[in-house]
Structures are given as C-alpha cells and as structure tokens.
C-alpha cells in the first residue's frame, strides 16, 4: 500500500499576536521573523500514516509538499520520522488558490504510480480554507473522507470519522483521500535522534512544473481583495476589591452598569 501525506509549511501559529503582521499591499503575512513549522493537522495526518504502517505490512509513506526550497524543512522532519520518500513540488504557492494547489499536488501524486491513500490535514493552520484535501480527491477522481481521527483497523482499512456529536466507523475499500482532524491518539510523535541524523543524509525528490507534464491550472476561482488584521480591542478592565466578596460585588455592579446583565 502506498500512502501519500500532504504536508504544508505554515507560519508558526504559536508566535505572539504582537509579532504577527500583514503586508496589505502584497496581501501576504509578514514572515520575516516568524518561524515556519509543519501545519498541525498535517502533523496529525502524518502520525496516522505512521500508525497505519506500524499496524500493516507493506505500507510505504511518501511525504509531499508544495513550495520553495525553504519548505524542505517539513520534509526533513517527515524523513526524520522515517517516511519512505519525500517529494517537493517546486513552485511559489503565493497567489495560487486552493484549486490550483490541489491540481499541482494531484499531478505530482499522478507521477507516483499506484497510490492507495492520500492523507492531509483537515485544514492548514494559516488560511484555514480546508479545501485542498477535498480538491485533490476531486482532481484524482477519488472519494474524500473528511474529519478522520483514527485508524481503527488496517486490513481492511477502517477509520474513525469525527462527527459533530460522536463518531462513525467507516470501511475504506479502495483508494481514497482522508482529511485528518486532531485527536489525543494522533499527536505527531517526536523524532528519534538517530533518525534525525539519518534523515540529514537522505535525498528529497524535487519536481518542477516541467516534470508534471502538460497541466492546466486554470484561473484562480477566488480573488483575494484585501487582507487586514482584526481591529485592536480595548484593554481589559481590572475589578478591584479588598476581598473576593467585594470583588464579586464590584463585578456585578459593573456588569449591570454596562447592561451586560
């Protein structure tokens, strides 16, 4: 079984709010100082793939990303977690919409021979569009199972799908795209030191546009008109008081005063 995991490098969502900015003219986030990390749900997807490989013979994992050379860091991480191959589609993804990215990724997957499973995070931690996984399925004419949180059985493949309340168990008989959500069982494991060192000696396969053959990316279906930060909120108001009771009374008075209760 060959499983492809889509990995996206994003700005570290953990950076303090104050450190985040956008360039309104270029309509992109300012990335100068912020570290780049693997998008969290993609990490969950990778963990799911690793668990699947541990529970079933003959699973081969390919990590695939789209972006400039800097995006290799997420592939190095995947190699350190012992994926079997790492591939980067070399393209500047800025300005591409979800559909165009999905077509590029699908074209790369098309180069990989028979692929049984494609896993991606349910959405990326930067734009939160949540579309690429489903659109890759569309481009490859595969079914898409969203919000998968666990592999419940490896042969036949059974997955747990998270629902608004509760969950469903689904059997996946043939090739499919799974978009993965987080769960306490699929937190991405830390890399082992020896695997990190071994990963530094492994190659990343780079595919450029020419390698993907004739490809019609089409026009962007979504036009980003403007990008701005939410307006700053007024500072918090501290309620003073000598004791807990006095503070509670002062809080109740204030809530009444502003019409909140």
């Amino acid at each position, binding site marked *: 079984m060959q499983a492809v995991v889509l990995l996206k490098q994003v700005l570290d969502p953990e950076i303090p709010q104050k450190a985040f900015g956008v360039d309104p003219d270029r309509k992109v986030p300012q990335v100068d100082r912020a570290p780049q990390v693997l998008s969290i749900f993609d990490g969950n997807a990778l963990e799911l793939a690793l668990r699947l490989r541990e529970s079933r013979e003959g699973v081969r994992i390919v990590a695939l990303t789209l972006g400039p050379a800097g995006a290799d860091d997420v592939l*190095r991480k995947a190699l*350190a977690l012992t994926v079997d191959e790492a591939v980067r589609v070399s393209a500047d993804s800025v300005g591409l919409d979800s559909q165009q990215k999905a077509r590029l990724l699908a074209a790369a997957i098309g180069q990989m021979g028979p692929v049984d499973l494609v896993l991606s995070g349910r959405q990326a931690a930067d734009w939160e569009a949540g579309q690429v996984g489903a659109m890759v399925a569309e481009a490859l004419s595969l079914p898409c199972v969203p919000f998968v949180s666990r592999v419940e059985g490896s042969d036949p493949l059974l997955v747990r799908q998270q629902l608004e309340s509760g969950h469903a168990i689904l059997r996946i008989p043939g090739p499919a795209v799974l978009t993965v959500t987080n769960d306490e069982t699929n937190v991405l494991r830390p890399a082992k*030191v020896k695997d*990190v060192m071994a990963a*530094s000696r492994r190659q990343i396969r780079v595919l450029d546009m020419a390698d993907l053959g004739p490809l019609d990316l089409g026009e962007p279906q979504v036009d980003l008109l403007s990008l701005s930060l939410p307006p700053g909120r007024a500072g918090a108001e501290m309620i003073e008081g000598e004791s807990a009771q006095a503070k509670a009374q002062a809080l109740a008075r204030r809530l009444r005063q502003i019409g909140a209760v």
Partner: protein
Amino acid sequence: MDFRLTPEQKMILETVRSFVKTDLLPLEVEMQTAELAGKGHEYPDRETVRRLQLKAKELGLWGINTPEQYGGADLGTQMTALISMELSHCLVPFQFGGSADNILFHGNDEQKQEYLLPTIAGERRSCFAITEPTAGSDATNIRMTATRDPGGDWLLNGEKIFITGGNEADFAIVFAVTDKEKGARGGITAFLVDRAMGWTSRFIPTMGSWGPARLSFQNVRVPQRNVLGEVGWGFKLAMQWIGNGRVLIPARAIGQAERLLQAGLEYAEQRVAFGHAIADYQAIQWMLADSAIEINAARLLVMHAAWKQDEGLDNRHEASIAKLYGAQAVGRVADRVMQIHGGMGYTKELPIERLYRDVRLYRIYEGTDEIQKRSIAKNLLRGSVRIGEWD
C-alpha cells in the same frame, strides 16, 4: 558565518522540548513541594531520574556526547550545549543517561568493562574526587596519599570534600599523591576506588540544591589494576576532565537565565503599580534589556567555545571566558528577576529564590571566577592567545 541552527539541530531540540514538556515540566510542582518541605536537594530521587533517563532513551536522548561505539549518539559539543540550554529551561535538575566521565575512556579494557560500560548503562555511578579541605583551586596541592604495600596494593589515606555525586556514587575516581617530590609533574595518580573497598561519604548541606559529599579514606586498599592511566600522571587526566565539561556549565546557566527572564517578562506585563503595568516603567525595562543582552552574549560565547571544541581546536581560553561570563550573568539575571517580582520573588511560593541560591555555585565550582580570570590573563601575558584573534 551562519548562526542559524541546522534543520537537524532544530529537530533534535524539538525532541528535547517534547520530552521536557511531557515528562519533566509536570514534576516542577512536586519539586516545589519538596523545596517547601526543606527537601529540595533530595528531588528528584534516583529511581525517578532512572525512569526519566530510560524514557528519554526511547527518543535517542542517551549518551548525547558519548562515542557511537559505546552506544552514544555522539552529537558533539555544540549540540550538547544547545540541548543543555533547552533542558535547563525546566527547573527540575536532570541529565540524560548514557554518559560517563571522559577520563574513564582512558581506562584499559578490563577497567572499561568494569567501570566505563556499566556507568554508561546507568548501572553504576561515579564521582570525581580531587578537591580536599586544603586544596581546591590549587589542586596540585592535594595531600591524600597512596602508598604501595609489599603485596603491590595501594593504601589510600585522606579526605576529599565537595564531591559532586559523592553520596550516590558506587565508585570514585580518586586522585592521590604517589610521589611527593614530583607533585603534579609525575607524582599524582588516579585510582578507581569502589565504595566496597572501604571509603565512606557524608552529605554536606549547602545553600542550594547541590548536595556534595565529604569522602573519607582510611587505609583503603586498592589493587594495582585499579590505577587509571599511568602511575604518576593522574593530574593530566584531572585537567582533561575539568577542561571537557567547562563549556557546558554556562550552557546550563543560559537555559536557567532564559527561564528567569521569561518569568520576569510575564510578571512585568501583568503586575500593575501606580495605574500601569510595571513593564511600562523604564527601570523595569532596563532590567529586562540588560538581562537579554547578557544572555545573548553568554550564548555566543558558549557556542564559540563549543564550536572550537568540535573542530578539535584548543578552546581553553574561550571556555574560561564563557564559563566565567555565563556564571556571573545568570546570577545578575536572577537578581534582577527577583527585583522585578518584589516580595513574591523572595518567597518560596515561586522558584526564583531557589534559582538565585543555586546559580551562585557556578561562580565557585569547576574553577572559580578568579581561576578563570587567572587563566585568561595568563593566556594573554604568555601570548598563547592574541588580542583580536578569532580562531
């Protein structure tokens, strides 16, 4: 000149961070409870440390500076320094397993089997015993004697003091005078001495969590096969031991200083006085800025000294500078962060006062500030380093 961490360094630090977050940080509460009960120096106990070391081993965090042929990861001094900084962001004192005193690697095959390998495996614990009540910085002046009896064994007599790990050790690497006339130049020998051979230890209470021991030797009989290295040339080994770890002390200090600065920063932004967060006041800002400057400087000094070590260059001068500066800097940072916290910082509700006491040790052990300055000045006066020289 590239100051960026490599992807490998970043990933290994991520792994360390993950271990710290999952396994080490949750113990801080227990440690603080032990501190409040006056038992801070007993925490964490040997079983806890062993359990944590084996957990870390699963991630390959084992023997980080031990050669691969001995099962280590052999990550080099720079990586070890970076790991040490990361690890000491957590206040629970902890070292990864799988390492041994560097001079044990000088043992013969038999000694390696009996002492080195079990130490690396965590089955035995060593201590390095050179300091005596009347010989600290001037270690060439030690008085412990080793005399040979007619049967060929050695008899050790004397006292060792301030021996790190001396209460827990199964064996000691002991330095004793075998030829008074020759002194450090051919008259001091290193011995591997099992506790079972008859030495005793006594705990020395200190102002911090460092709980060293006083070791007592009265006619302790040590066989000839337990001489480490050559008879008479133990002092050379001692210098190698001291030199090897010097650069890692400030690395630990940097991690602690960073943790302190983070606490100072957060408190300064939260604490309101005279209608403003105290972070708005210049007096506090300067404390934060001075601390950040010193931490950054110490970090660069450590990494430069570590880089020289990895390159096989003589780094004694740089290691002395880094050790001296890092040890002093963390003390100043602890002092400022306590000042930022005011009365709260002085209480045992917060760990600041403990760190304030603990880090004072760095200026004393493994070469005092004065010894470092003496070496630095001597290097300049002798011309063994030149002003403005980089490598």
